[in-house]
């Protein structure tokens, strides 16, 4: 009934309604800008404060009102934190761990994802479901037995507990790559099979070269997750020379407490690689978050 009355409504009312919608759209857009700009300001303020503090001399931070733009701008904090503390060591340790674990994780997981997406074997669905279940196990429950296991193996204070588990692949990466491989056209492997390729060759020469978006996604997610990881290194690493960069930062905070410019310079150094990787591969990253809705 309502629809009928709408259709019969005089044209004047429709025009008025149209105008009303135009005005509403403009108001909405202005409001959106105001909200987004204010929000962006709030989001960037802490990061700006970190950068600003890191460029100030030691005593420059204990003035009120604070200087927003440092005058003079100095880089001494960066040279000091890089040369006089162990931060650089942590930087390289973290780089090594992040790269080895991520590359290993990608190779093993895409191979399994390929098998789950493209091959037939009894129990395939069952095994895949089993792997998905691991994503739901709260990490806190498995943390203690894992520690006991690695202690039995004599791996405490080495990087092995941080690296080896990831070389078995992760459920998350298997899930993502399976979804991706399932979406590729069937002709891909048919042609290869006719040419007499075995399954390894199909995976390595046909599917992997076609999997760049998913590899890039897994790479960003993996590298950032390992670079940021704190709990693992905290549990397993003991000597300072093995520390990753987050542990180094927290150690700096206890050794150089209240030397804010130095600590902020260290934080900037820890943050920059993440920002660089993120900006370079941002396209893949944002897509993957939007598609899967799962945080790396």
């Amino acid at each position, binding site marked *: 009934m309502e629809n009928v009355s709408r259709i019969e409504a005089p044209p004047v009312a429709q025009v008025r309604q149209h105008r009303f919608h135009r005005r509403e759209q403009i108001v909405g*857009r202005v409001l*959106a*800008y105001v*909200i*987004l700009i204010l*929000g*962006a300001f709030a*989001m960037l*303020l*802490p*990061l700006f404060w970190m950068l600003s503090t890191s460029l100030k001399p030691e005593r420059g931070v204990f003035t009120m*009102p604070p200087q927003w733009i440092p005058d003079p701008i100095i880089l001494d904090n960066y040279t000091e934190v890089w040369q006089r503390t162990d931060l650089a060591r942590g930087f390289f340790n973290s780089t090594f761990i992040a790269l080895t674990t991520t590359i290993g994780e990608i190779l*093993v997981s895409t*191979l*399994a994802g*390929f098998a789950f997406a493209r091959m*037939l*074997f*009894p129990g*395939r669905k069952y*095994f895949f479901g*089993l*792997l998905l279940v*691991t994503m*739901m196990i*709260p*990490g*806190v429950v498995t*943390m*203690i*037995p*894992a*520690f006991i*296991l690695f202690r039995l193996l004599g791996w405490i204070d080495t990087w092995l507990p941080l690296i080896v588990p990831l*070389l*078995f*692949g992760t*459920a998350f990466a298997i899930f993502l790559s399976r979804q991706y491989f399932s979406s590729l056209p*069937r002709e891909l492997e048919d042609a290869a099979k006719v040419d007499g390729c075995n*399954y390894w060759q199909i*995976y390595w020469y046909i599917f992997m070269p076609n999997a760049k978006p998913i590899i890039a996604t897994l790479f960003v997610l993996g590298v950032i997750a390992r*670079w*940021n990881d704190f709990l693992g290194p905290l*549990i397993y690493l003991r000597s300072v020379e093995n520390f990753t*960069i*987050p542990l180094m*930062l927290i150690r700096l905070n206890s050794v150089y407490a209240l030397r*804010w410019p130095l*600590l*902020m310079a*260290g*934080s900037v150094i*820890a943050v920059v690689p*993440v920002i660089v990787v*993120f900006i370079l591969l941002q396209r893949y990253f944002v897509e993957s*978050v939007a*598609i899967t*809705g*799962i*945080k790396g």
Partner: protein
Amino acid sequence: MAVSSQPPRSRLGRYEAFWGYLFIAAPLLGFIIFAAGPLVASLVLSFTDYDILTPPRWVGTQNWQEILGLTVVTLPQQVDDESGEFLFRCGRETVLQSEIADYEGRVDERTRQVMTCAPLLVRATDVLPDGYAPWFDVELSGTRYLVGARDAILWEGLFNTVFLLLAIPISLALALILALALNQQIAGKNLFRVVYYLPTILPLAAIALVWLWIYNPDFGLLNYLLREAGFTSLGRTNWLQDREAVKPALILMGVWSGLGYQMLIYLAGIQGVPRQLYEAAEIDGAGWWAKFWNVTWPALTPTTFFLLITSMIAGFQNFLQPYIMTSGGPGNASRTVVMTIYDNAFRDLQMGYASAQAWMLGTIIIAITVVNFLLARRWVFYEGEGLS
């Protein structure tokens, strides 16, 4: 692609199955070693006393009794032994009921404050059974009840953890507003997306140092801005050393560092709302609020539901932020459950007891997930179900 679930019988099929198992062998082995094995092992450990250095000793349900040991007692008012009168506390003095009038409303000479009188209650340790410590007390219809726990630190940690979950509704609401704003036709969309998302991917250790500096009581940014805005007394708060302020401070930082992720998921959800629904609503003359409330919000309930579950699972395992920022202090005001588990396991080497605590938390997390799923049936609309 469509595949039959029939096991392959041919030689070619067996060949394919062989390679298939080979390709998934490593992850399956990893599943047993790093997930299923530890899951069972920690359950078994939860019934033992194990300090790593000596072999585990079976203690039955002792750990569990300790963890779940809760009791409720009433806190009666103290009575004077000689006169049998109720005792009151006025300022710093302990006063008989009949003498209250001499004290109430007068100015204390030492503190120069007007005295008020309150009933003097029995000390918690006098009424709690042996082995119990006070957790919290609450007044119900005139009687003060005290809840005691054998592991009061664990339960206080649970309370703190749940309190810190307040960050979730706050950030979900903000994330939705931002996503709706970002969904308008505006310039610089991508830039905004990057700016909001950035904090979520940065290493928490670095972020925590920045916020330690922001929360610095004397020279920190927050207090400076508060004082500039006219909140003079609030602008002197020692955010991380004050029992009242520490949780809001951690929540604020948590909202800041998690908002972008939720915004991005909401944005994807909004863009998935079928265009025809809006057109239909517009034909019906719906304004922006009617469109939001009748179209966008119902269509987004699966997204909200997903974010709620994942944030709660993560929130219950909250550890790093309070560990780095406050070490659980002041007192135990910001100590979370996982911090307690971590300390028991890796500092005090009580692996068995900590395993029981971990399983208790794991059970809570799973229970909440299940409850969320059950409740979801009542309010989550999936597309195609009809938005009635």
